[in-house]
């Protein structure tokens, strides 16, 4: 870079703590301090050191007790290495699916500045359509192709009835429109396919694979998780290639960068919107099938999208790598949290852990892990 080249600034609002919280060494110091204190206390590494006692009495037993309660299970968890690896794997595999749902949001957000509230209902609707079609005796493969077709048709209808009329409107109006869309789609799916729980008629692999043995622990991974994650990974990679290497993908990124300029070079925004909503629909179909496989397709599927929200907050609304990485973090983190603290807190941590993590991110790094770099020229 030459002297005339620019510097990149960071985006976003600043939290009051950001002076320190933005520094990696601050967090490193906090973590070291916590582990030092807890380590001294829990494992009695330095039992009779005078200054240790001084620190303890200074901080008080309350704080130490709290830190101990929080960190001890995590430490113990990792001591059972085999079990830890197994749990982590399961978490990461689920994380791939979170990534995928979050990607659906990011795509639409980038291309049209629209936060698509209906993404969750799209998951439900797509899966319902697929299962419903198979119930009419249509072969699975054909039903899959038809369900994809329905999602593309849905994209075209959304563009025709909604998007083109809302050009240049405020974001909040676009958001309201997607809320309306969500309610419509929910009722529509219900009317057509009924509201009873539907079984996915796929012969998905079941059982578990013995992966490796550590100590006396057999690390097992569910075949269902593996196949879902593998398909999810293929989709994520395909999307990345599509985005970075194709003419349409380039146009998508151009639209995300600068609508006006994209228009000026002859990119047709309507085409782009249809493509983006179609891709989001296909992603939704896949997520719906995988999630519906264990417990059947039912209304609760649309709540999956709620899990994508913290993923978006952590990864940044506009970042594709962010969605992928944050999905993995959430999947991994919530499993570990559940296993470590689930007992003492009475379980159910998996349901809210992601949201809590997202809150922490909102305070520390409001633009998200990979939030779009705002390029500022000097």
């Amino acid at each position, binding site marked *: 870079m030459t002297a005339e080249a620019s510097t990149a600034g960071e985006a976003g609002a600043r939290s009051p703590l950001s002076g320190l919280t933005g520094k990696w060494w601050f967090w490193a110091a906090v973590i070291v301090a916590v582990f030092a204190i807890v380590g001294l206390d829990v494992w009695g590494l330095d039992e009779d050191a005078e200054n240790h006692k001084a620190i303890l009495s200074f901080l008080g037993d309350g704080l130490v007790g709290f830190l101990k309660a929080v960190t001890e299970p995590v430490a113990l968890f990792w001591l059972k290495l085999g079990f830890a690896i197994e749990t982590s794997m399961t978490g990461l595999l689920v994380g791939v699916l979170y990534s995928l749902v979050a990607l659906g949001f990011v795509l639409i957000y980038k291309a049209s500045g629209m936060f698509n509230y209906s993404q969750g209902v799209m998951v439900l609707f797509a899966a319902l359509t697929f299962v419903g079609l198979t119930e009419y005796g249509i072969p699975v493969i054909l039903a899959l192709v038809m369900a994809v077709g329905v999602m593309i048709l849905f994209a075209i209808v959304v563009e025709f009835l909604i998007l083109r009329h809302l050009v240049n409107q405020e974001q909040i109006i676009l958001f309201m429109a997607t809320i309306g869309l969500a309610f419509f789609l929910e009722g529509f799916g219900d009317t057509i396919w009924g509201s009873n729980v539907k079984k996915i008629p796929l012969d998905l692999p079941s059982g578990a694979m013995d992966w490796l043995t550590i100590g006396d622990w057999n690390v097992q991974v569910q075949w269902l998780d593996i196949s879902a994650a593998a398909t999810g990974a293929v989709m994520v990679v395909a999307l990345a290639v599509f985005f970075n290497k194709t003419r349409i993908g380039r146009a998508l990124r*151009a639209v995300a960068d600068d609508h006006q300029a994209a228009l000026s070079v*002859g990119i047709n925004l309507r085409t782009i919107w249809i493509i983006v909503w179609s891709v989001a629909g296909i992603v939704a179909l896949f997520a719906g099938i995988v999630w519906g496989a264990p417990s059947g397709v039912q209304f609760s599927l649309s709540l999956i999208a709620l899990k994508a929200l913290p993923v978006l907050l952590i990864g940044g609304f506009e970042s594709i790598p962010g969605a992928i990485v944050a999905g993995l973090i959430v999947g991994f983190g919530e499993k570990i949290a559940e296993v470590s603290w689930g007992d003492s807190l009475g379980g159910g941590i998996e349901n809210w852990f992601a949201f809590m993590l997202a809150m922490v991110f909102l305070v520390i790094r409001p633009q998200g892990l990979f939030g779009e770099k705002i390029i500022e020229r000097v």
Partner: protein
Amino acid sequence: MSEASTSTGNGDAKQLLLAVNNIEVIYDHVILVLKGVSLEVPEGGIVALLGANGAGKTTTLKAVSNLLGAERGDVTKGNILYKGEEVQNLDPNQLVKRGVIQVMEGRHCFEHLTVEENLLTGAYTRRSGINDSLELVYSYFPRLKDRRTSLAGYISGGEQQMCAIGRALMSNPSTMLLDEPSMGLAPQLVEEIFERVKKLNEEQGVSILLAEQNTNMALKYAHYGYILESGRVVMDGDAKDLAENEDVKEFYLGISSEGRRSFRDVKHYKRRKRWLA
């Protein structure tokens, strides 16, 4: 008020490419910005559209390229003919396919795309000959070739302007609408960019409609000029004549018989009186 004359260019009878006939533009249904603007661009011509801030230069160009729609602007009167065809109802996308492309004010490169990706998006409407066009752009702007893998957001202002012009060139246009290419650039750089534009015009036969505040520079390179004030064409003529014209000298070039004067000293009412009376 002077009507746009029909004899344009350097006097020779070149074919008419673009004709804007007495258009009126309204933003948001109420803000009347253009009050009857007419102008013509002959095949192979460089036509300058001059005027102060807010005169309506950008609005005129956007009316032609139909980017107005995205700004809630509307052409409510008059019409725009391109190669004899009425084009004011075409989408920008269809206009680009017909060979009319705008290089927007403030460059508007895609900041998170590399320079080469920026250029390639310019060829969005085309299917073949893209690599040849890329080489052509690089031959006109060798600096872009050096920077081809840099993100466009990180290159210098001059390079961004070249990138924006190069991107437009990738659509293989017959008419380029250039909106203030000199904006925010150092004088030598402005000169360099105008030289390239002139070369493009001469070698590639691209006709140019150029909106500029830098009257001096624009008149040096253009064949013909229009002066816009408050949404009206107040004067037009051959670029050489305009550059010699006392009023233009005084009010737009900041030169008067008493020597150089600041633009600020020129009083608005005085300008109106002279030209509109």
